[in-house]
């Protein structure tokens, strides 16, 4: 199969009654969807795009929540040859104006011809649109043609080529939304083939996921992979999961789930927040791999997860890891499938001071590093120095990736693409790590990105919002992540320069910053640290030196991680 529409057609003709997807909604009956229903529901959307004059190759932004409409709107765009991009839905705590600013940023770069949403959400979106922008239609889910039998000979998606862009994948926030990863049919299929070998995928696999589809892990592993491969996908809403993590275990039990992908924090979250009374009848013995991906992997989270759930049938050999990124479609490495996870005990000081991952001697302070596994087939990893020279095993440097499944580019951003691609087709990931006999270990990050609960957060977005608070020096705010050992993910800290030395006023400013950041970016802050003028460290070119500011904060504030 060369393109997504061809694959859907094949499934529609050969396995129409196979339940390919079951949608779960808390408090409602589970909703099974067969390939026939999937394709016919998508065909209704494709007919709507066609009727409204959306052209193949144009981008359609989907602003829909977990549910049938999101699924049909996505595959409908594919059948029509349009390029779907899923945007996170507005949560109640985020200010609508901020959300619209993000949407406007997305529209400016992506130039979509249409936005699909619910009627009740139209009024939130309209004010973000401008007379002269590219959006010709706001398509409401209620105006869309119902399910219909597709005429494959007239669907424009069948004229798309394997090298054409099939979808866009964005990170969140204003910054992330301006850099959409464009992926071709061919790149996705190649990644799925590589991944399939690495995880030993079989027709019996059942994927259970709560991951949002606007995130690469959710979109690829928890959506495209099962649907394109013919594996049953049991999909729950991230909103339901975060309120009731036990529902994941119940779903695995009910549907005999075999594979799930989770960000590191979820291991802690499940271990800490699920009560035994919620696990009556739960049997996790079908779970053959629970793959830790998209955040730095911590062994203690794995141990806590295992301790909590092994009495419910979780096997210790189900623990697995992966290092992945949207720019490579998804998986770069895979570990823990068919063999146990590799742990590397290294000398902490050598890592921090010499940037060498030296095996720890007896008595030395050590770190237990969990391997992300080995490169999946057709993907090569090397570690490079700042001049892009390859480094030897155990020397820490930037992780560079080359594969047969790279992004086509950042959509409409050749400048951003050029920044991360180096000679020979290597992609510079912005992550630091080291290799030992082909096993990859991630040690840190070169880029300023913060990862909170698996979600990418750009510090610039937080700083911009905080600077607008009265009493804060514009340009003198810094945001960074501090690892929270108990949660297994990063917390966000903001340091802001203020003039006031009045304690009451300072407290009020700190509270305003918290509110502004929560309402402006949907991120809850661990700490707001107010300092006097001149505190912040800047680089020689006058930019915010976030890592140095982070070090200074940790030393000075007593926030001992």
């Amino acid at each position, binding site marked *: 199969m060369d393109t997504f529409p061809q694959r859907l057609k094949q499934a529609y003709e050969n396995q129409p009654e196979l339940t390919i997807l079951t949608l779960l909604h808390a408090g409602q009956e589970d909703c099974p969807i067969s390939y026939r229903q999937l394709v016919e529901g998508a065909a209704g959307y494709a007919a709507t795009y066609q009727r409204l004059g959306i052209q193949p190759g144009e981008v359609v932004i989907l602003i829909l929540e977990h549910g049938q409409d999101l699924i049909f709107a996505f595959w409908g765009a594919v059948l029509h040859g349009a390029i779907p991009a899923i945007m996170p839905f507005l949560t109640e705590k985020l200010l609508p104006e901020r959300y619209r600013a993000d949407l406007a940023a997305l529209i400016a770069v992506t130039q979509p011809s249409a936005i699909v949403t619910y009627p009740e959400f139209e009024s939130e979106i309209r004010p973000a649109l401008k007379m002269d922008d590219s959006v010709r239609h706001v398509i409401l889910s209620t105006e869309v043609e119902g399910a219909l039998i597709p005429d494959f000979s007239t669907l424009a998606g069948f004229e798309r080529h394997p090298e054409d862009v099939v979808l866009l994948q964005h990170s969140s926030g204003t910054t992330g939304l301006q850099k959409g990863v464009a992926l071709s049919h061919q790149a996705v299929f190649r990644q799925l083939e590589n991944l399939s070998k690495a995880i030993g995928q079989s027709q019996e696999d059942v994927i259970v996921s709560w991951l949002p589809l606007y995130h690469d892990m959710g979109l690829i592993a928890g959506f495209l992979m099962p649907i394109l491969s013919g594996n049953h996908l049991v999909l729950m809403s991230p909103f339901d999961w*975060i309120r009731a993590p036990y529902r994941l275990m119940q779903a695995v039990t009910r549907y005999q789930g075999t594979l799930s992908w989770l960000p590191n924090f979820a291991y802690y979250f499940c271990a800490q927040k699920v*009560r035994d009374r919620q696990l009556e009848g739960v049997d996790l013995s079908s779970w053959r791999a629970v793959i830790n991906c998209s955040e730095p992997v911590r062994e203690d989270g794995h141990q806590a997860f295992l301790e909590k759930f092994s009495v419910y049938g979780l096997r210790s050999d189900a623990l697995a890891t992966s290092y992945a990124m949207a720019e490579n479609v998804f998986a770069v490495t895979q570990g823990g499938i068919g063999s146990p996870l590799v742990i590397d005990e290294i000398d902490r000081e050598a890592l921090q001071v010499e940037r060498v991952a030296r095996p720890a001697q007896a008595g030395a302070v050590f770190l237990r590093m969990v391997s992300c596994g080995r490169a999946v087939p057709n993907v090569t990893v090397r570690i490079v120095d700042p001049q892009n020279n390859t480094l030897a095993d155990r020397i820490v440097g930037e992780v560079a990736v080359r594969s047969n499944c790279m992004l086509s580019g950042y959509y409409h951003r050749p400048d951003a693409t050029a920044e991360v691609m180096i000679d020979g087709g290597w992609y510079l990931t912005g992550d630091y790590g080291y290799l030992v006999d082909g096993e990859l270990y991630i040690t840190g990050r070169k880029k300023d990105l913060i990862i909170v609960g698996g979600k990418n957060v750009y510090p610039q977005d937080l700083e911009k919002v905080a600077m607008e608070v009265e009493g804060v020096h514009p340009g003198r705010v810094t945001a960074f992540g501090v690892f929270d050992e108990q949660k297994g993910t990063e917390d966000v800290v903001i340091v802001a320069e203020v003039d006031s030395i009045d304690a009451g006023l300072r407290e009020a400013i700190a509270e305003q910053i918290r509110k502004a950041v929560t309402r402006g970016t949907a991120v*809850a802050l661990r700490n707001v640290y107010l300092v006097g003028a001149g505190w912040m460290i800047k680089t020689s070119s006058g930019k915010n030196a976030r890592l140095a500011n982070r070090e200074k904060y940790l030393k000075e504030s007593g926030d001992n991680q």
Partner: protein
Amino acid sequence: MNQEIVNQLAGRIAKDLLKQPNRVITADEALISSGLIDSFSLVDLSLMVEDDYGVQIDDTELNAETFDTLEQLADLIESRQ
């Protein structure tokens, strides 16, 4: 409204959920719709209520429509005790 429950909840939420023990939460302040209680902490809130008052709040009730203030939460707790 049960002022005692409101006061207890205010203290517990500030200390254990927000990790800002000095944060004053008023009885009519929006907790969920304002984002004060992060979605990651909603499950903690339900576990806290279960432990302290023996009252179960279903996960489908962890939203601003069911309760959004300490006042409303205290009423909910009282009605189920």
